[in-house]
């Protein structure tokens, strides 16, 4: 069907009439959706409240459970609304009643779409907006809410619109098997995956906008053509093809994962190695099998007799070993934390006393934008007050904020925060329970602080060792300082630059060891993907008066020798040739780790599979008399993307019947007047002598 333009001005009554009819007909879905979404979001909101009120929940800022409901609910609602608008009217007399009207099919489509979006707005937009407002309303959640936290709702909402158009497409599309009808949802699904994993908000918006364009074009083209693929304009066909192709890819990934996960056992070893300090000040290597310690060896690899017995391989081994951990954040901004779906870049929850003790009635957050610590009542959700460098003030008025850059604790250090708050210009000690703050360390002029940490507050240790049990360590641009809480300097070392190469430093004091040495222990980053890896570690042992007693170096160890063959073969079979080429170019280092035979096999197998797919595609295209341009296009796609192109072609195109040609005897498609082999037309239906033809 040829439509002259995308939008044609209809008689003014027609568009409004269609819009009204669609709204009236599908209003019930708006109500159903509104009720369903509201119920679901309310349930999640309750959950959220419980989480924040409970004293055991440490909020890591990654994502809120609410957004699980928004993305799934929006997707489901959009899809169902789209299906509801098409499935009843797509064929037969109902289609006739809709389509036989003096309006362009395009106008009918836009009327439906406008109505559908309005219904979607009510069913999804209203509840989601309400929940976001509820979240931000002071007193509902003990949280320093900023409007940026609601951004995922916007992208999820838009993603649902993609599902809406996918629903329209699915309802309209001619497809021989029920399963292949649902493939149109592929583009929407891919869109959802991308928008929930993308880091940036605007890229996610772009993806959704792109999804809306593709799914919208596919839906419109299919609607105007009455369901058939072949009659649509090039752009529409490309959009439908992309949707179906993505659907097959998604289905393929899911389908492949099942046998793959059975076939390939995880190749990372269940055997891991860790280095730790024993009570008497020895550095030992602990080997874990399935997360249980099995061996204890010294640095030369000799198993240690006294720890052979499992009974002794427990906490008694590390009795009274105290440590303070410092982490050195990477100089680059942490994109993971800055993701729009995360609040890690907005505020950091502060807690004291280790990660298993309950939190108490107040929730404390350092708010980046304000440079202050906010205190909220877990019970009532209201703001209690603010903590600045000068102390805590109750009430909404904000005191002087912290000036320097906040040094956020990283990784495992975050769970061992202790009472320390680190800024580039000072280190503070917090007592959240008492709502007190004091300065722990003031750098010299020109000196910046890199990291700081303190030992845990442990009443048993305090009782046994008194003030010696509370110590802190600070690493600055000039020096490393270890001091007791009361200010007594234990160690002061010049900065040797290790923070550039190591991501964490620990100050370890085995209190029972003879001479009470102090260990300064650096660990490097980089765990191997396959096999077990041991980080590079550099440890310096100091005597209590600051002289170096010993240096230890543990080099990094990789047991990774490159991809094992079974996995390599599986990957070669499954990933299409085109993708392999791109991966090989982008990820040279992985290629370099492979042996030559692996590299050859890694390209030969996908190439072979692609060529086979291309052959299958080409032979079918030829047998069904596709235009030569089409034959070539599908063939090139098959070479790049492999068997999924063949499947897409099968699911996408309208495959006509074939009959034996009455003239030449070969199979010919029934859609062409003239045989593609011998150019003879179809024979007219056979007469039986009873015909009466006459027109006067």
């Amino acid at each position, binding site marked *: 069907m040829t439509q002259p333009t995308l939008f044609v001005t209809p008689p003014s009554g027609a568009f409004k009439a269609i819009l009204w009819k669609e709204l009236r007909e599908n209003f019930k879905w708006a109500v159903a959706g509104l009720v369903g979404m509201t119920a679901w979001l309310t349930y999640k909101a309750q959950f959220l409240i419980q989480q924040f009120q409970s004293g055991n929940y440490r909020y890591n800022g990654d994502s809120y459970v609410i957004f699980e409901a928004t993305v799934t609910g929006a997707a489901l609602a959009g899809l169902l609304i789209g299906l509801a608008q098409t499935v009843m009217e797509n064929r037969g*007399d109902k289609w006739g009643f809709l389509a*036989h009207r003096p309006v362009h099919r395009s106008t009918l489509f836009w009327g439906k779409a406008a109505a559908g979006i309005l219904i979607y707005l009510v069913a999804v937009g209203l509840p989601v907006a309400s929940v976001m407002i509820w979240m931000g309303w002071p007193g509902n959640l003990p949280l320093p809410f900023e409007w940026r936290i609601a951004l995922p709702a916007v992208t999820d909402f838009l993603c649902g619109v993609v599902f809406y158009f996918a629903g329209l497409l699915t309802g309209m599309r001619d497809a021989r098997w029920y399963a292949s009808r649902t493939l149109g949802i592929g583009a929407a699904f891919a869109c959802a995956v991308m928008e929930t994993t993308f880091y940036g908000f605007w890229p996610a918006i772009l993806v959704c906008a792109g999804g809306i364009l593709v799914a919208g074009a596919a839906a419109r083209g299919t609607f105007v053509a009455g369901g058939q693929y072949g009659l649509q304009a090039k752009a529409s066909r490309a959009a439908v093809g992309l949707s179906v192709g993505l659907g097959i890819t998604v289905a393929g990934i899911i389908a492949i994962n099942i046998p793959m996960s059975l076939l390939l056992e995880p190749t990372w070893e269940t055997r891991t190695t860790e280095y730790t300090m024993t009570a008497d000040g020895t550095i030992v290597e602990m080997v874990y099998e399935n997360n249980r310690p099995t061996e204890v060896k010294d640095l030369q690899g000799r198993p240690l007799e006294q720890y052979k017995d499992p009974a002794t391989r427990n906490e008694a081994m590390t009795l009274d070993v105290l440590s303070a951990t410092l982490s050195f954040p990477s100089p680059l901004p942490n994109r993971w934390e800055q993701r729009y779906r995360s609040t890690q870049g907005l505020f950091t929850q502060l807690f004291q006393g280790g990660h298993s003790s309950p939190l108490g009635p107040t929730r404390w957050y350092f708010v980046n934008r304000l440079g202050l610590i906010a205190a909220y009542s877990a019970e009532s959700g209201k703001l209690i007050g603010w903590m600045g460098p000068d102390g805590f003030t109750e009430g909404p008025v904000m005191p002087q904020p912290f000036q320097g850059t906040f040094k956020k604790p990283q990784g495992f250090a975050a769970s061992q925060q202790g009472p320390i708050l680190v800024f580039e210009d000072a280190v503070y000690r917090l007592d959240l329970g008492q709502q007190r703050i004091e300065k722990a360390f003031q750098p010299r002029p020109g000196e910046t602080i890199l990291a700081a940490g303190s030992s845990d507050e442990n009443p048993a240790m305090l009782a046994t060792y008194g003030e010696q049990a509370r110590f802190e360590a600070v690493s600055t641009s000039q020096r490393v300082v270890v001091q007791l809480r009361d200010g007594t300097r234990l160690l002061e070392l010049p900065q040797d630059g290790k923070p550039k190469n190591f991501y964490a430093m620990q100050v370890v004091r085995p209190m029972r060891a003879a001479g009470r040495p102090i260990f300064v222990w650096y660990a490097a980053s980089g765990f191997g993907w396959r096999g077990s890896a041991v980080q590079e570690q550099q440890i310096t042992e100091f005597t209590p008066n600051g002289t170096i007693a010993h240096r230890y170096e543990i080099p990094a160890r990789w047991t990774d020798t490159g991809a094992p063959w079974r996995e390599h073969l599986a990957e070669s079979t499954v990933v299409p040739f085109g993708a392999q080429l791109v991966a090989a170019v982008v990820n040279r280092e992985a290629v370099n780790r492979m042996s030559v035979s692996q590299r050859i096999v890694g390209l030969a197998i996908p190439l072979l599979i692609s060529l086979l797919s291309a052959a299958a595609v080409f032979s079918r295209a030829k047998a069904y008399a596709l235009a030569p341009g089409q034959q070539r296009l599908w063939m090139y796609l098959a070479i790049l993307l492999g068997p999924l192109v063949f499947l897409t072609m099968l699911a996408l195109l309208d495959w006509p019947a074939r009959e034996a040609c009455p003239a030449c005897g070969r199979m010919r498609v*029934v859609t062409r007047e003239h045989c593609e082999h011998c150019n003879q037309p179809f024979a007219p*239906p056979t007469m039986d*002598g009873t015909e009466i*033809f006459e027109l006067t």
Partner: protein
Amino acid sequence: MSGVIETRALTRYFGNRKAVDGLTMTVPRGSVFAFLGRNGSGKTTTIRMLLGLTEPTRGSSRVLGYDSQALPPDARARIGYMSESHTLYNWLTVRQCGEYQSRFYPRWNDRIFQAVVGHFRLHPSAKAGQLSRGERAGLSLAITLAPEPELLILDDPALGLDPVARRSLLESMIYVTRGADRTIFFSSHLLEDVERVADYLAILDRSVLRACCPIETFRSHVKQFLLRYGGNATPPAQLPSLPGLLHVRRSRAELRLTIAGANEQTQRLLRTLGADAVEETPVGFNDALVGYLGDRGEQGFFLEDTTALEMAGNKS
């Protein structure tokens, strides 16, 4: 020769099965054209292709001078279509149905709408879903006629209607013929109504067009011959191939043959069958059409020879 509807080798497959095979016909302007055929012979499929609601596998059709697959809105405004199921939106009232439809058509004669609605005694505020079958047909007819279309395409319009509603439908069709340029193309199984109202007919037999002619031509082409066998003579067990043979009914002393397009040659052939008398008997339109549409050849619903049964009964 340009008709209001023209098809050229129009063909439609569903999977491997041909629903419409090489249909070539012309519907003259101003005619009342009956489209006949048994259930499942392809009539509804043809109508859907004519209206561009389904795409043909092969071939083409033109309606009002436009390709069916690209009917512009002004052409659609001049074509009224009523489907077999009298589709309506059930939640609209009778009045709302009229208002809704009227917003699409540049020319809407509300008097006609009201007249048909009144004729079928429809309550303006009754919901379409609550109407009876005949009432739905009336409402469907009202919205089809109100735009005063040049071409009316009706797919089995009287399906399921009671006699009163059928009569009203017939009256509407006659009313439409007041416009000299207005054409009606309809399919039906009610042969009495077809006989009353149609000028032309086309017959679709298992996806193939077998007849397309004025109704009188059809009547004059289908003849029935009675061959009487007296005394000991019996009708031959095997008949020679007779061109145009539609139907044979035999009993002990008679052969009744229905033949399409019988000519001199046929008469001569019949005389060779050894009957005492060959008599041409008049055929009603109903019988002619049923004979034409039924299976060709020697068939009958009654499997055994009726006279044989009677003889057996007499003996007991």
